[in-house]
């Protein structure tokens, strides 16, 4: 190399560079190269997957487009459960932490402490997505965006509102925070209410802003709206009167079920205690249960009209039969003596129900025999789920008649040893009201008949009509439920006062007060079951506790349903006009 150097400045003597310099440069380059190659290997091979993912995160993203959940409406289209859009606030923690001056104002609109917000962001600093606050109103969402904090975004979410509040809380049920049915009809109808979320492929920058919307788009499919058979106006009335009665009688709980006999439509189904479904922070688990389907009880005297209908149907008794009540005390066997409240002497069928004679009912039951009594209850729908499809529904207790002796048969005839739900009892009375034709009970208005739910003729129309006539005495001044009388309407009904089973047999202190009634007599439009559990006031008889609830609820129901009064004076318009002229 020395020889090739320019020789122009021959007079300048140059020191030859030391040999180590060239070597040092060479080694330097070599090390550099090796490091670069190693890093490239590391990135391309070792960490390739992770990095590709990270890149994707900052680039191409599938954004889920939430689908609106179907509404639950009453039979007139009034909303019982409705999804309304809300804004959920989320952030990229690292991006937000870069702008500490925005934390204060942001925390204020989010109703949080600044320090708490900072703590949460730091704790999740490595994440790309963190919910700061969920389900704000659209107006609050706009306030959040007005802060203009970096890395803070809104996400559209739907929130479930329950306009009927506690009045229909257990019936309608609840969804969880992610919008899936959790209780009640929200759970039962989940598959139909639920929508199909759509998706969108978009390109996002590091801060999560949508830079470009690429065409791939699956539109969200909204859930189905569902109409119930329930009439919200009746539901409100039922709940209001139930609540008032439970509080007035210092009872522990209660239920009201209203059914339209001609269709099997459940018009109202209220349960108390209840809860406010719009405030899930204060949920009381005991209020979640819908007692009309999840709680069973012994129907007591309310079962007597059913056994009577069966006996009439089989011809064991006739409409004019008279039964000797044995002075009010009747020894069935060594183990069982049936007692009446007092001696009613010889009773016809109307008086048997009016006075609620246990002896009379036991005699009819024994006349029928175990199999017939059992079959009657089975036919009326006891011991089996109704067609309502309500989650957690109980079947009650109806033991096989093979093991029934005289004692079991006699007690079953006045409603002990058998357990039913409020809904089952309403269904049984609806069959009586519909001239013996039992419609399967419905909570949802369906266009098509559910398989296996065809109407069944339980007793003959004659038997059903006769029993309805015999039940009309119950609400007379003579009867056990004079307080169930309705001005202008004929009422057939039956009271029940049941001792509850305690730790050691039947408890004298704890009762259940029942009333089941229907009106008008000739062609009942509504059947209503009222059950008040453990009243602790001075009254505990069904006629004093449950019957007034019936009267109050029915007064509203008949007005709402525009049922024509069938009792009392009727004037023709001409006569009224003539009356007007005279005065």
């Amino acid at each position, binding site marked *: 190399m020395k020889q090739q150097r320019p020789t122009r400045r021959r007079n300048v003597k140059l020191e030859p560079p030391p040999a180590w310099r060239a070597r040092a440069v060479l080694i330097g380059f070599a090390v550099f190269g090796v490091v670069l190659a190693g890093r490239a290997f590391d990135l391309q091979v070792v960490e390739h997957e992770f990095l590709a993912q990270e890149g994707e995160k900052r680039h191409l993203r599938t954004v889920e487009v939430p689908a*609106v959940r179907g509404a639950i409406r009453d039979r007139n289209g*009034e*909303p019982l459960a*409705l*999804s*309304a*859009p809300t804004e959920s606030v989320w952030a990229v923690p690292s991006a937000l932490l870069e702008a500490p001056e925005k934390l204060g104002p942001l925390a204020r609109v989010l109703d949080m402490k600044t320090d708490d917000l900072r703590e949460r962001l730091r704790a999740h600093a490595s994440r790309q997505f963190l919910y700061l606050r969920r389900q704000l109103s*659209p107006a609050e969402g706009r306030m959040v965006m007005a802060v203009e904090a970096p890395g803070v975004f809104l996400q*559209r979410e739907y929130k479930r*509102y329950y*306009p*009927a509040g506690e009045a229909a809380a257990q019936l309608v049920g609840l969804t969880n925070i992610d919008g899936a049915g959790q209780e009640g009809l929200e759970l039962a109808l989940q598959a139909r209410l639920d929508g199909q979320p759509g998706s969108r492929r978009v390109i996002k920058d590091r801060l999560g802003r949508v830079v470009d*919307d690429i065409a791939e788009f699956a539109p969200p499919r909204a859930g189905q709206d569902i109409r119930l058979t329930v009439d*919200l*106006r009746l539901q*409100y*009335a039922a709940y*209001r009167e139930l609540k008032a009665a439970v509080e007035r009688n210092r009872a522990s709980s209660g239920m009201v079920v209203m059914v339209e006999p001609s269709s099997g439509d459940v018009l109202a189904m209220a349960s108390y205690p209840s809860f406010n479904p719009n405030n899930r922070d204060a949920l009381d688990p005991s209020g979640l249960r819908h007692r009309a389907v999840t709680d069973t009880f012994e129907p007591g005297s309310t079962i007597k009209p059913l056994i009577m209908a069966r006996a009439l149907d089989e011809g064991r008794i006739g409409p004019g039969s008279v039964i000797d009540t044995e002075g009010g005390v009747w020894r069935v066997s060594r183990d069982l003596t049936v007692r009446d409240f007092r001696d009613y002497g010889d009773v016809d069928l109307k008086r048997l129900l009016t006075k609620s004679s246990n002896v009379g009912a036991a005699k009819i039951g024994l006349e029928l025999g175990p199999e017939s009594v059992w079959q009657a209850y089975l036919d009326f729908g006891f011991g089996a789920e109704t067609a309502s499809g309500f989650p957690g529904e109980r079947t009650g207790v109806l033991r096989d008649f093979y093991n029934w002796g005289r004692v079991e048969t006699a007690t079953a005839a006045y409603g002990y040893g058998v357990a039913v739900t409020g809904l089952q009892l309403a269904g049984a009375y609806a069959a009586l009201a519909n001239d013996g034709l039992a419609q399967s009970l419905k909570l949802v208005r369906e266009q098509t008949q559910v398989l296996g739910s065809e109407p069944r003729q339980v007793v003959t129309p004659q038997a059903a009509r006769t029993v309805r006539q015999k039940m009309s005495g119950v609400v007379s001044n003579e009867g056990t439920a004079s307080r169930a009388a309705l*001005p*202008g309407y004929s009422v057939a009904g039956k009271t029940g006062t049941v001792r509850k089973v305690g730790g050691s047999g039947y408890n004298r202190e704890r009762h259940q007060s029942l009333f089941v009634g229907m009106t008008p007599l000739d062609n009942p439009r509504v059947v209503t079951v009222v059950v008040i559990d453990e009243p602790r006031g001075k009254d505990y008889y069904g006629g004093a506790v449950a019957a007034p609830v019936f009267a109050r609820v029915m*007064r509203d129901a008949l*007005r709402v349903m525009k049922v*024509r*009064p069938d009792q*009392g*004076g*009727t*004037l*023709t*318009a*001409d006569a*009224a*006009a003539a009356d007007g002229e005279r005065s």
Partner: protein
Amino acid sequence: MKSALLLAALLVVNLVAAVAVVGAKHESRSLRADLQSLRVARDELNTEWAQLQLEESAWANPDRIGRLASSKLEMSHPDEFIMLEAGQ
């Protein structure tokens, strides 16, 4: 000469196609923007509709109506009544 003409013609066609592509792209962009704004409008209308339904059910709550009827309008249930039959 012939091929030069062909070349010129293709050049013109190419130019027209290029302009058309630009036009189509522009139109697609503006249509997508329209779609987006319509979607936003629909969302807002849906939101409002849901709010209005909730508001209506709050105002028309049967308990509230009943309370107003008895307190403000002094209405009550007609427990005593006479049925009037329309004359034939």
